[in-house]
């Protein structure tokens, strides 16, 4: 299936290229008539490129949710560490008075 998709992409690319060349060679008033067909050919080509790209989007919405959760967890760890660090400094300060 993957080879077929690549071959289809090539074929669509040739068709698109032919239409692009034709469109470019035309005078402006004739380009207007050809443009919808050109856009249709391009949409098919672009859509297939995107389809072939889609398996590469491996990170899911659930993964993104997990990233946020991990980030929050690390932030909470940072707050906890700051709190304890502050307490240690306070103890050290207090110790000076007791001794």
């Amino acid at each position, binding site marked *: *299936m*993957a080879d077929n*998709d*690549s071959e289809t*992409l090539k074929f669509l*690319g040739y068709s*698109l*290229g032919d239409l*692009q*060349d034709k*469109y*470019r060679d*035309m*005078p*402006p*008033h*004739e*380009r*207007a008539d050809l*443009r919808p067909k*050109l856009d249709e050919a*391009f949409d098919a*080509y*672009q*859509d297939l*490129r*995107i389809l*072939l*790209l*889609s*398996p*590469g*989007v*491996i*990170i899911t919405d659930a*993964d*993104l949710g*997990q*990233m*946020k959760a*991990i*980030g929050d*967890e*690390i*932030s*909470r*760890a*940072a*707050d*906890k*560490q*700051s709190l*304890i660090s502050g307490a*240690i400094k306070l*103890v*050290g300060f*207090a*110790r000076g008075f*007791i*001794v």
Partner: protein
Amino acid sequence: MKLVLTQVLSLFLCLSFVTFNSACTKEKAEALKTAAKDFRTQASVAIHKLDKLFIEDVAFASLSNEDSLAKIVDSLKNGPSGRRGIEQIVYESEARALDTSKYSQKLNQIRDTYEEFEGMFDDLPRGHYFAGDAVAKSENLARKLVAQMIFLANYIKTNPFRLNARLQRAVDRRRDALAETDVVKRENKLILLATEIKAIRTDTQAANAAAILECLKGAEIGIRVVHLIQTYKTSSVTDILAIVRDGLGRVNQLTGKNTDALMKRVEEINTTISADADWNAILARVITEMNG
């Protein structure tokens, strides 16, 4: 009482000192945060290359001023009359570019995943001691992001992009050469065009290889991130520095290599990470979806 209190406070201070000199030092946290940032930066470079490749894949070559004017004159003579006719000529007086934004949006979706990943570690240096478990949870996400880079490299290799504008100009030049009535001039034009054809082939391969290279660099940096995550709780600062140096060395080795050499490295990474059950599960799903 004063003695007891002093002893308790001293004990608390000692425990805290021991605690904060554990394996999860601030240096390791900074190294991981920096590596995640490098990963995001490099992924962005790779994705930008992919974006540009598609724009060039469907770009129009501009016409010479002479040709452009000739076509407008043709339309003024033969096109529809009235205001509508004039507006149509103005609107189509240059070949209008094709809209690649849908494809760009797909790439942005991929780019965002690396930014989200980097963002996780913003507070890590501040919370390096207590964040060990959270860091461990990020390992599988890092693996998936490496797999994304590998996929993109394979995607470019399997479905390479064209330099469309140069191909269009080659079509023009061929037509012009074949229309030349002088035999010697025609032959010279065709020889010059043949040189350009070879250059288009070389430059097309180079453009695609350059994008593959950036994806591969992203994968190498991502592998470094995975190693840093795996060893975050247990390794020393020296170990961390070794992982970082090794990663940078691998990235430097990639520069200047041709497509075959780069794809060989892609295969090596595939083989290495396939030997790991967790990596393999991710890659197997990607390969299944690629093969439909």
